[in-house]
């Protein structure tokens, strides 16, 4: 049982990384990950939101939607749950750490529309995870997202001062970087069967 959870964790962080293998959550990866510090903040906020929202959406799905036979409403319900969790996180962060709140700025509300959050909730249902597996799945995918975000930001901080050929300046070199990182993460593919 323990091994299974460990496998879920490793496979979501490295093998089936949401950003580089499943291509979810690309918007914050491209836009936030220009500097290291906001990337770390965004990674932490997303980790918190993603874990909490996968727990909440699991509970809502299994104890509310299934007993009443309303599985067909899961997408809209999950969006609703995610919006509430993000709003709650925003209120708490605003109180607890004003500097982090200022640093995250618009990106905190944007987590609501981040497809990785909805994607994890729906994949939890699709793969019929139990409660602990769903929590680990959410947490692992968030750690994978944060890992890519931080690595990507660190690479881009160096690219910003590098002498990039004129045709590749700005967005193209960013997308190249993402592509090469994606190829790099393919190296983990054999890690978990």
């Amino acid at each position: 049982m323990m091994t299974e959870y460990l496998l879920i964790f490793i496979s979501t962080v490295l093998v089936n990384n949401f950003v580089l293998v499943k291509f979810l959550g690309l918007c914050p990866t491209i836009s936030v990950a220009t500097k290291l510090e906001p990337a770390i903040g965004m990674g932490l906020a997303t980790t918190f939101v993603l874990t909490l929202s996968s727990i909440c959406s699991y509970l809502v799905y299994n104890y509310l939607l299934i007993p009443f036979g309303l599985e067909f409403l899961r997408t809209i319900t999950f969006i609703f749950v995610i919006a509430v969790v993000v709003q709650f996180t925003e209120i708490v962060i605003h109180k607890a750490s004003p500097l982090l709140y200022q640093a995250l700025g618009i990106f905190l509300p944007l987590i609501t529309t981040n497809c990785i959050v909805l994607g994890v909730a729906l994949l939890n249902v699709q793969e019929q995870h139990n409660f602990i597996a769903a929590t680990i799945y959410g947490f692992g995918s968030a750690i994978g997202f944060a890992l890519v975000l931080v690595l990507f930001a660190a690479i881009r901080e160096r690219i910003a001062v590098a002498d990039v050929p004129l045709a590749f300046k700005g967005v193209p070199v960013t997308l190249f970087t993402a592509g090469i990182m994606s190829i790099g993460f393919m190296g983990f593919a054999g890690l978990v069967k």
Partner: protein
Amino acid sequence: MVGIAVIVIGGLALLFGLLLGYAAGRFKIEGDPLVEQIEMLLPQSQCGKCGYPGCRPYAQAIINQEANINLCLPGGEITRLSLADLLNQNPNALSAKKQLEEIKMLAVIEESQCIGCTLCIQACPVDAILGASRQMHTILTQECTGCELCVAPCPVNCIQMIPMQPTLTTWKWPYPADSLSVKPPQGFKEEVELSLL
């Protein structure tokens, strides 16, 4: 079927609404906590040397990014460094708009003219003026922050601001006459990729 769906989702919405309402009350923010933190670092002499009517408006202006962190003259270098530390800014980046006067000024009472009216004592925010009614006043040079608030109230204009003479502990090497020009790397610019969103 539709009725059940409406009731279930509506109930869920009600529950979440109550939760958010409770959270908004429980984690209520009074004022801007960052402004409070900045104000705690300012000397509270309300002298107005920074160009704002007091320490709190200046803290607000720093938050709104209208003012630089180096405008507080009474606070001096310590305030500038602690503000830079709090806000994670470069303490040496000077604003083009207004620069910190490098030479610190000091108020001095021309004691032969002083009539002992105590008006300057009441004006001094840092209690740096010593004296009593109808007695000659004097200024404690170690306490004076150079805020100039005592100059205006004096009825006989006996207070003057003089530049502080450097002592062995405050003397610094002068800055080089020509500062070195630092060029950014070729073709470097702030990347604007938010448009990708």
